[in-house]
């Protein structure tokens, strides 16, 4: 299986562990993710805040690097939503599409972004690889782990492949890995990233609410699908504890790391040691050999 792939800036930065785990499990599943040539930043929330056309151009520039009628796989929720959004915006505002297509044409760039299907990596595992194949690769079922599935907002809103408030894709995947998936209703509450630098207090309150329910449900770890969510929930736990007098200490891992563990891949190859909240205790709950 071969896919066009958009990693996004974080995977080349703070989310090194996400990158490592993706590489490791894709090798195991014989999937090739081919980075699109010279991709650029998706613009995150910044470009759309200043100039929505700039945001659309940034996204379109990436999409037109894929062949028509192909798919583009994205690992980060924020990038995913930005790239996905171009199509619906173009459909809704044909005049804007025309304007942007014309600008790109001035630079000899052709290609129709609407012909590219943007998909999240999680979606690919569920719908293309399939749970059966994933299950057949499991050597260490995660049956001792009580996990909190956290999706974040950008995976399902405003668009996506699952329910906008209570999606189930990640629950399904983790269940297939043998884990005990806990009920969790703040699945898609925002982690506050967009306001972290400008309004830290609000962002911390948002993070706290997620940690609060995760703790209340008795989760041993939070599983995420996005480098931005990971960073906020993981790196700011300390600050949350200081701000609110709590003592949360919940490791936050990527769903691909959970898959890697179940596949029996060595934790270091998955970047498991790179959690700000240490994840090592979890390893004690993984069976030695199956």
């Amino acid at each position: 299986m071969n896919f066009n792939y958009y990693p996004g800036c974080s995977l080349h930065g703070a989310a090194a562990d996400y990158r490592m785990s993706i590489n490791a499990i894709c090798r195991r599943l014989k999937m090739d993710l081919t980075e699109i040539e010279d991709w650029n930043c998706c613009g995150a929330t910044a470009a759309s805040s200043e100039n929505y056309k700039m945001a659309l151009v940034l996204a379109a520039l990436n999409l037109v690097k894929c062949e028509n009628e192909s798919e583009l796989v994205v690992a980060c929720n924020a990038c995913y939503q930005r790239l996905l959004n171009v199509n619906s915006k173009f459909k809704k505002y044909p005049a804007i599409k025309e304007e942007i297509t014309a600008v790109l044409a001035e630079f000899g760039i052709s290609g129709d972004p609407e012909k590219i299907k943007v998909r999240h990596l999680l979606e690919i595992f569920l719908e293309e690889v399939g749970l059966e194949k994933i299950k057949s690769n499991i050597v260490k079922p995660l049956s001792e782990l009580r996990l909190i599935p956290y999706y974040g907002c950008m995976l399902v809103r405003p668009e996506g492949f699952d329910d906008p408030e209570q999606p189930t894709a990640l629950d399904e995947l983790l269940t297939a890995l043998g884990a005990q998936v806990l009920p969790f209703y703040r699945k898609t509450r925002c982690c506050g990233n967009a306001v972290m630098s400008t309004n830290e207090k609000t962002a911390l309150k948002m993070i706290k609410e997620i940690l609060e329910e995760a703790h209340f449900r008795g989760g041993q770890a939070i599983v995420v699908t996005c480098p931005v969510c990971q960073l906020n929930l993981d790196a700011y736990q300390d600050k949350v504890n200081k701000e609110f007098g709590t003592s949360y200490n919940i490791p936050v891992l990527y769903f691909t790391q959970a898959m890697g563990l179940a596949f029996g891949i060595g934790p270091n190859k998955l970047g498991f040691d790179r959690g700000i909240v240490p994840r090592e205790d979890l390893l004690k709950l993984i069976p030695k050999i199956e």
Partner: protein
Amino acid sequence: MAENIGVYVCHCGSNIAAVVDCEKIAQAASEWDNVVIARDYKYMCSDPGQNLIKKDIEEYGLTRVVVASCSPRMHEPTFRKTLEEAGLNGYLLEMANIREHCSWVSKDKEAATEKAIALTRGAVRRVVLHQPIKEREVPVNKATLVVGGGIAGIQAALQIANAGYPVYLVEKKPSIGGHMAQFDKTFPTLDCAACILTPKMVDVDRNQNIKLFTCSEVVEVDGYVGNFKVKVRKKPRYVDEEACTGCGDCESACVMKNRIPSEFEVGLGKRSAVYIPFPQAVPLKAAVDEENCLYLKKGKCKQSCVDACQREAIDFEQREEIVELEVGAIILATGFEIFDPSVGPQWGYGIYDNVITGLQFERITNASGPTGGKVLLKDGSEPKKVAILHCIGSRDENYNKYCSRVCCMSSVKFAHLVKEKTDAEVYEFYIDMRTFGKQYEEFYNRVQEEGVHFIRGKGAEVTEIGGELTVRAEDSLLGVYREIPVDLVILNTALVPCSDSEKVSQIFGVSRAESGFFLESHIKLDPISTTNQGIYLAGCCQSPKDIPDTVAQGSAAAAGALAAIATGKVTTSPISASVNEDICSGCKTCLNMCAYKAITFDENKKVAEINEAVCKGCGTCAATCPSGAITNSHFTTEQIFAQIEGVCENG
């Protein structure tokens, strides 16, 4: 063909004349073939307007009439009558709709006038080919079928029965009463629901003219107005209704006692597999629930109910029966269901224990309910803070667009009941307070005075913060976000169409509105009839409404049915399709197309046959027939083409 046509162009006050030049139409019309007189007038439907037509028919010997005015929906019958009164067959009339199709949809005077002239010309061309046809009269069976035994059906059934005519009342559940039987008090006067409903339910039981079928559903309807043939599936109760005294001994003896969630208690209480739905049930007879009875389901049970019943009424040999009825009219009164708030997890229903629906609250506050009428939390303690959320699933594109009409008032009622029974603070979250009925605003005022906190802002989310149930909302009058911790949340959910309403609409041949409720003939002037003549609507199956409106509509539907019964006959539209046997190739294409099952196949002659009485003249078959063997009277191919040519012709 030489005909004498009169053309009458109506101003409809300024409704038409403000945009369309009526005089110009009349002028143009006076030049057309066959037109002997063309006039424009302020109100054609008024008495003087109609007299104008009558006078002209006499003076000019008119043989055809065209009225260019509003939609024929309202006034075609009016002008047909005008023609009849002047001795002309009513079907020698044609109307051109120059209001809805011209003046109301355009500001461009010239274009609108041009279109109006074209439509009128089409009507003139068409009317030349009209044939006089006679309306049919059919005899009316004096019995009426009422479907659904809620307050709407009860009211309609009693009204007709009291007038001395037979009624069959078919109810799906083991008892009549509908939702009202579950309530404690009713707004705006707070009289006890049981006190005002039970006497009516008992009347139904006692009335000699009413034959009640419970645990029953209509499965097939054939025939037409005045002469419907209905099949009712009567499910077994497994209890001999004659023998059962309703003592409840079986219920106490049942092995499944207190193990099955009770529908009547909306899941808050438990019942046995053999049960009497509620103490005031009519008929007051036990019924066995097939799904949960161990004996019926698994074939294995010691049958303690059989031993307990001294009247030997339990009868596991009972089987389903199909009963055939013949009735002249049908009243649909199938009511509503409650919106399931668990589809919106933001409201916390099914997630947090103390989030309940309004209907569940009705049971909690009801003296015969699971808590004996005390307002209590799941753990048995009394709430100190209660939130009531309006519009859950109503006025919301994501769920139902419409306003459910009764929830503002029932929310205010809930607030009052909580205040009356506890010391709790009550917070009501509303978008707009709609207390429109008689004595409703006064009731709202009274509950305001009781100290309820009314917060203008929809309850956006119910969640737990620091272990406390909390409602998040904007207090929009203050423009601030609030998180209000409470102990109990009452979600006042939308009234939605019954989940089987699609099936029911097909069985009875009635249409449904966009909302899914059954569609009336005219939203303002005929909210009782349906497009299927002889079938009437009453209560919430037509749209959400309160008890006063439901009762009024129940009586009105009864009046509709009684009018036909009293005269013993009804006139039906003579517009119907017929098959030319010589042309019909016997391909049977039309058979499945007819929505009213009016077409049968004559196996001897190998041709299709249309039952004129059943046919509604919709024309589907005529349009489908590949051989062109079917003609729809008053909508013949020639008539339609003449009209099209008239509209398209230049000048």
